């Protein structure tokens, strides 16, 4: 099974499935709108597209080996409660075809109580409850099986993660396990979130975006380790990328990537403290943030998981950010792509990458039989024997 990275077209939102060579898969964020919830909606049915790519267990239930919520925003978890089973695996509603999550990966934010700075949507609240349930299960039993497992990525500043030991991954650590098993086909470096800084005055949106989980995933290809790196960081803002560069400038390889998911749907705020809509071309790029996001390897691809990037005042996605990313890519011969634009803005489709022994490569979409015309055939005909 080849390593694949699938980015789903969810407008300004993230929904990324990484399928490792071992067969394990990691879903990072979800945003379900469109046809999955309303058949008349022209947007793609991303849940169908997701399920087509997921394995099913002995009872026919689709499952993800692990699900990571980078941070509790609706554009990263919308539809979670409706399409995923949350709660003890024994309570799975038969016939619902909900997706089972064998292991949840979450930031320590799930331990935080709602406050003026921390109000979250219903799906995010459901996820936090589920993560806490699993932590409780682990505390009570000292072990957990499929559907009860949990990993906490990063330490809580309030000490709530101090006793978690085996299910806690600390920032800067590299880990290779998923759903309780060691996996030789990937290593992941946890780059963020860092324990909260003292700056309490940030507005609530910023607080969340600051706390996004950032992973650099090193994937094997055709059995050869570390053939491609995927850097993904939710909605992490300029502050975070500056900090990352300042901490890791002397070991820039930690931030090197072949595939980068442009943070916050190609937002200018990941690269600059200035406002694009207010300052336009006068807005300044943060040199440290640009360095943090600029460790592109030869031929690297930066993907905006967003609506089509237009030359306008919108942000995100921001045309200025796109230009900055293109500038980063130019010296290494890389490519900037936008999920919302391919194959066409009118009907975007899943963007897929494969990791081979020769590194990351984009998968060109094959024309499906239903859209092929020519040779007199529409659809397909069985071939007989004569």
């Amino acid at each position: 099974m080849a390593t694949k990275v699938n980015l789903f077209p969810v407008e300004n939102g993230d929904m990324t499935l990484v399928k490792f060579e071992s067969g394990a898969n990691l879903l990072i964020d979800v945003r379900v709108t469109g046809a999955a919830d309303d058949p008349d909606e022209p947007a793609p049915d991303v849940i169908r597209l997701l399920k087509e790519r997921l394995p099913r267990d002995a009872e026919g239930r689709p499952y993800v080996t692990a699900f990571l919520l980078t941070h509790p925003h609706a554009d990263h978890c919308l539809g979670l409660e409706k399409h995923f089973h949350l709660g003890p695996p024994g309570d799975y509603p038969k016939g619902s075809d909900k997706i089972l999550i064998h292991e949840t990966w979450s930031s320590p934010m799930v331990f935080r109580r709602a406050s003026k700075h921390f109000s979250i949507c219903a799906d995010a609240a459901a996820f936090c409850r589920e993560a806490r349930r699993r932590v409780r299960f682990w505390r009570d039993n000292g072990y957990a099986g499929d559907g009860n497992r949990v990993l906490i990525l990063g330490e809580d500043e309030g000490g709530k993660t101090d006793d978690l030991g085996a299910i806690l991954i600390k920032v800067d650590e590299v880990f290779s396990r998923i759903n309780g098993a060691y996996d030789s086909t990937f290593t992941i470096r946890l780059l963020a979130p860092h324990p909260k800084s003292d700056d309490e005055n940030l507005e609530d949106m910023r607080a969340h975006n600051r706390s996004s989980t950032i992973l650099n995933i090193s994937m094997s290809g055709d059995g050869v380790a570390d053939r491609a790196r995927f850097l993904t960081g939710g909605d992490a803002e300029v502050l975070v990328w500056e900090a990352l560069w300042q901490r890791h400038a002397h070991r820039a390889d930690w931030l090197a990537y072949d595939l980068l998911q442009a943070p916050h749907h190609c937002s200018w705020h990941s690269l600059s403290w200035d406002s694009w809509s207010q300052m336009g071309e006068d807005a300044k790029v943060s040199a440290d943030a640009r360095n943090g996001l600029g460790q592109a390897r030869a031929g690297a691809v930066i993907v905006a998981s967003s609506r089509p990037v237009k030359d306008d005042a919108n942000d995100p996605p921001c045309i200025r950010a796109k230009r900055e990313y293109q500038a980063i890519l130019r010296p290494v011969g890389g490519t900037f792509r936008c999920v919302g634009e391919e194959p066409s803005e009118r009907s975007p489709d899943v963007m897929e990458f494969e990791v081979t022994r020769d590194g990351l490569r984009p998968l060109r979409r094959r024309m499906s039989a239903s859209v092929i015309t020519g040779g007199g055939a529409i659809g397909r005909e069985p071939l007989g024997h004569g």
Partner: protein
Amino acid sequence: MHALPSGAPPLSPAVARALRTARAHDGVDGVGAPRLDMAGSVSVDIRFRLGLPIAWSSAGRSPNGVLAVEPVTFTFPPDYPFRSPQIELRREFDRCLAHVQPGPPSERPQPCVYDGLLGDLLAARGFGEILNQTLDWLEKAATGRLIDPAQGWEPVRRDTLSDIIVADAPALRAMVGRKPGHAWLGFDYLVCGAPSAVDVAYHGAVGTERVPFNPSTFPEKVAEEAGTDSVRRGRSLALFLWPGCDPTGQPVIADKYRPETVSTWAELVERAGEYGCRTPLVDAFAWFGRCAQAWRSAGRRPLVVILCARRPFRVIGEDSELELVPYLVRVEAPRALPNGPETEVRPAGHRHVVSPALLRRMSGEDDRVLPPWTLVGCGSLGSKIAIHAARSGRGPGRVVDPGILHLHNMARHGLVPQRWAIPLPEGKAHALAGTLSGFAQTAEAVPRSIVAALRDGTIRASDLRRDFALVNATASLPVREFLASRAAADLPRVIETTLYGAGRVGLVTVEGLDRNPNTADLVTEAYAAAVEDAALADAFLASTDLARVPIGMGCGSTTMMMSDARLSAFAAPMWEVISRFGRDGMPKDGGRVLFGTVGEDGLSLAWTSRAVAPVNIVRAEAYDGDPHEIRISARVCDLIDEEVRRWPGVETGGVLVGRYSEATSTFHAVDVLPAPEDSVRSATEFVLGTTGLRGALEALRGSSRGTLYCLGTWHSHLVESGPSPLDRATAQAMAVARLTPSALLIRTPTGFRALLCASVEAAVGASNDVTNAGEG
């Protein structure tokens, strides 16, 4: 070729659609301007943007030279889409990548994008799929994955070949050892083309036996029919060469794909070097050259050279990593190579010899070698079953039939008359065995009746020990009875196949473990089963459709008339049944009765299968020493036990129904009639009444079309005891009253006892009212 001028006829709608499809394809970077050639074909360059690994993509090409944006020319013939477009790559594209169509270096390389006919793919999936396949091909070429170890090594593509060499690949591979070597083998061939023609084509078979020769024997090894016929026979030699190990002791492995470019002897020697067999080629051919010096040939003769390349993994479609690559060179006296190293060498096509393994593969069978089987009866049904079997590589190991294959048999026999053959009468067994040998399968022909052959030891029990079944396709009642009479240890299980009712019903019976139930039990069960189905009873039980067909002046044949097609409609599923039991094992829970019936539409064929439990065998006591068996079906045992339970404390009884075989002195009891109302039951005796009994027996006779009848009576004993004096008196009375032997069966608390009621005198006139024979 020129670009379409303004005012040129517009593109055909199909080509225009194809180009629109190309523009819409995610992997297409651009579509060039269409060009029209004189023949009316339209060529267009389509640029594919490949999904290369990103590092190569940034460099613009893969390390093996495939471009990140690769131009491909599609040429649409005037009759597109009835014909598929031709696909051509850049002239500089590396031909050493596998899956490139063979062709001269002067032509642009053509990728082989689809494993099949491109026209079929176009019709089935449309032009978009051809684009998909082309993109796949280019991406695989760039990443060196056109050869997929899981699929196997792609043999050297060499499609346009005029010479065909049939060779037994496994036999040749078996000669290959660790050291490099060669073998001279025979080559029997047909040459097509007038003797004076420059271009002649050869079609021949390479033998598997080594052929030694020296200067004096050489001329007889290389000889061709004289004459002016355009097809002539000849024999020559084939040189098979294989590689050895390199200086480090590792086998020489040819792991680089090389397109077929050999056209001269010098190039052949070079290619042999790449495969590690140059030395054996040079050494062996030196001997050939020396022998040819004294040879006086009247023209050029073919010499086959087969190189063996050891590949890094299994060759596609083979179970070996050894690829055989044959060539043909035309040699001449006295120099052998008329133009020295520049003598023309032609790549030749290899075809497998017909082998059971090849036939099994073609039939979708697994490659297991199954136990053999014997076919008894090589008539129209038997021969067809045998040929179905042989075509799937599982033909019979022995064919038995005393009959002669007459001309009139050609109406339906599985064998096909030979052109020019003088109509010599030939034994059916030998004729069938001869045909099976054409399928590379050896069947022993026994031109005798199975009855005689088993009696006189032509076929011994030990000969049949390995067989999984003996298939009786004779439709002969005596043969069935004879087979039923043989001890279980002496015969494999019998599978009987017979057609009835002018081809409206087919019957297959399969004996159980230790031949219980046996073939005669099973046919009696089939009679009982058919009684319940009036349509089946009419076609099967009343099958009397034998007719006398004139086959010559004053000469006729008695047979069942039906078409060859109808016969085939039954023969095919019958072989399916047999092969299934051969493959999956014979039934472990009794026997089987399968009915195939043709529907009212005369076309549809429905099969039903029923399991038949083993019978209970009771030996009957007889006064005159005439041993008889009563074979009681499991159902009859159940009915008797039920009746006994209904009458606790008294004896009870009833009438036994079934079939009697005089040939085997056996009663096959398959049913019981209840005791008449006026029967008397007491603790010491049971007296069978008569009220309504005659009517019931008449009704049975009618519904079973006379195949089932009264065999005698049964009654119970309350204690474990043999026949009482009263029982013996009754038996004697019955023997006098009835012409046929009758059975008197006693159910004791633990088993059965039986008395035979027959006098020798009475048995002489016994009738054996069995259904008429079917076609076989």
